[in-house]
């Protein structure tokens, strides 16, 4: 590992100089050959395994050759400056990028060993297995119950109302929301507070029993108190699900995740144990970013 870091140094300082001032849109186009991510890209028996992933928006490349394994039952956080491609990468994992027409993805993305990239792969079961929670809480304008029941309903997971009730109950319990809403399941989900809404969205995602949950800045619309609650929830969910979380807040990454991946200008610079990243990162770019030395 020491060797790797050593090799990286020169490149990284070059990259630092290329960092444009605050303009997220500008991306260095230099196609560095032999770029290599620092840290533990591979894990044993990964749940998700991404290899040499490249993403383009029309002609603009947003992700460069990213390889990353995600282990089962871990929380992996993705951090990096604005526009570095965190969201793009995350959305590759359940093909939400399909909804953006100009977006093109290459490389291999395996979920439990199956490639999810093929044209003929059906996104419906894929997304049932890889759930997603968004930046702004987006409950459907329906009752709390219907919000949670929606997933099981469309996938036909329940034979009857009793099963469905139980499933809704379980999901809300897991999302730590049951106590707060049990008396008003029939009230609209949009009437909840921001933090509760976000937990409702998590409950909704859990209800289809996914294997992986992707979260794109799930707390950035929330105040510190609601944020702390969600973070706590994430830590509990980890025991059952694999969670990938994108966040702008380094503190948050440090708090909730076991591993942290640092993206920079579309490249995965470093990925390692969170403790390691935040007390002693190997790559200078990572260090600069987390200590606030950017630019």
């Amino acid at each position, binding site marked *: 590992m020491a060797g790797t870091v050593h090799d990286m140094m020169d490149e990284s300082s070059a990259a630092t100089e290329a960092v444009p001032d605050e303009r997220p849109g500008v991306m260095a186009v230099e196609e560095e050959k032999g770029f290599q991510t620092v840290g533990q890209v591979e894990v044993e028996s990964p749940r998700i395994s991404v290899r040499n992933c490249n993403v383009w928006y029309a002609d603009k490349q947003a992700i460069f050759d990213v390889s990353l394994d995600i282990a089962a039952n871990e929380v992996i956080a993705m951090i990096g400056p604005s526009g570095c491609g965190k969201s793009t990468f995350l959305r590759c994992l359940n093909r939400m990028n399909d909804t953006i027409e100009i977006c093109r993805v290459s490389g291999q993305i395996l979920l439990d060993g199956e490639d999810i990239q093929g044209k003929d792969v*059906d996104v*419906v*079961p894929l997304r*049932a*297995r890889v759930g997603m929670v968004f930046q702004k809480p987006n409950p459907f304008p329906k009752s709390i119950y219907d919000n949670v029941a929606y997933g099981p309903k*469309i*996938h*036909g*997971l329940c034979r009857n109302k009793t099963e469905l009730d139980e499933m809704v109950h379980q999901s809300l319990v897991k999302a730590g929301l049951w106590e707060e809403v049990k008396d008003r399941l029939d009230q609209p989900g949009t009437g909840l507070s921001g933090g509760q809404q976000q937990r409702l969205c998590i409950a909704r995602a859990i209800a*289809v*029993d996914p*294997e992986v949950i992707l979260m794109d800045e799930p707390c950035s619309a929330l105040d510190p108190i609601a944020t702390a609650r969600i973070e706590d929830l994430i830590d509990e969910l980890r025991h*059952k699900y694999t969670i990938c979380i994108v966040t702008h807040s380094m503190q948050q990454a440090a708090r909730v995740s076991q591993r942290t991946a640092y993206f920079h200008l579309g490249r995965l610079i470093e990925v390692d144990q969170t403790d390691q990243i935040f007390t002693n990162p190997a790559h200078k770019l990572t260090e600069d970013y987390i200590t606030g030395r950017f630019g």
Partner: protein
Amino acid sequence: MSDKSNKTIDIVHAGLARRHRKERWFRRMGVAALSVGILFLLFLFVTIFGNGWSAFQHAQVRLQIELSTSVLGSPETTSNDELRRADYGRLIRDALLDYFPEVDSRRERRAVSGLVSSGAVYQLRDMVVSRPQLIGEVIDVWLVADDEVDMLVKGYIDRTLDESERRISNEELGWIDKLVADGRLDLRLNRTFLVSGDSRDPEMAGILGAATGSLLALVVTMVLAFPIGVAAAVYLEEFAPRSRLTDLIEVNINNLAAVPSIVFGLLGLAVLINFVGMPRSAPVVGGVVLALMTLPTIIIASRASLQSVPPSIREAALGMGASRTQAVTHHVLPLAMPGVLTGAILGMARALGETAPLLMIGMVAFVVDIPGGFSDPSTALPVQIFLWADSPERAFVEKTSAAIMVLLVFLLLMNLLAVYLRRKFERRW
């Protein structure tokens, strides 16, 4: 756990085929619906253009006319007035009879002169009056043919029908064929349609009177509706305190936007004509009524446009110490202007196509002259269409379609302008 998740995913897979089938059906329904709408549009356009295209040409007869001094007097002695009152009909009749020497019976003579439009007289007169030096010469002129001839030439009259069932006798057919064979009867560009007013004779009827009437009315509409509409919108959106009064105004405006246009006609009739005593059939009344009708449209569009200016811009200006008026005039209104303009143009376009209220205020009158001012009696394009559509003559059908084409061209131009404005000033925050 993996056990259970496997189960879940199996259930999901089991239902997939059915769900994808539903998906395809839903999609097809959408395509079908859209196609119906667009097909209808195409159908409408094809029909109208198919009908109306031919109106821009009409059958004309080339006659050799001797501008005999016996009828017109010598150019030196006759006054302009006398020249105007001369019997041009005779000149034409003579020319025709010269051409068809075989015709002698009275009935036949009448029929022969009927081949040429009664309006041809004025055509000839105008020609002579403008160039008196022609008098005494024999000239070769194209004169407008009668509408029945026109229809025949354009193929709208079925020759195979029994003579009793068509309006052109076999005899006339023969003449016409002779004229055609001689190259003396042909379809030529119909200038009359574009430059003259209405007429009872289809072949002499033109669109200019109606178009001018529409234009005058629109000018009135614009001068009234645009500033008032924008001002009202600005007041309601930017200044009005929330009170009963503003609520009332707001409800009113929304309601007015959806009040049937004919009711505005009733308003014009009762208030403007019967109460205020404005002249009937005048563009100014039409303009006012249309202005009242478009006002809510403009106000609503302007308000929407004002609303779409992010509040942060207002806050920014106010936070800088701009007064409300300054914030509005410096920032909000300029930013909203494209939307306001688009709304105004679309409102105008609607006003241009509106008919019902004009019927109520008498702009449906038969007006031959091209209006010269705001209070002259006149009609308007859509009303003209309505009038012609109601006329029994077959030739008016194509005139109607042609008038529709003219109207549509105007509307399309206005819409294009609106689209252009929207594109040009489109701003994203």
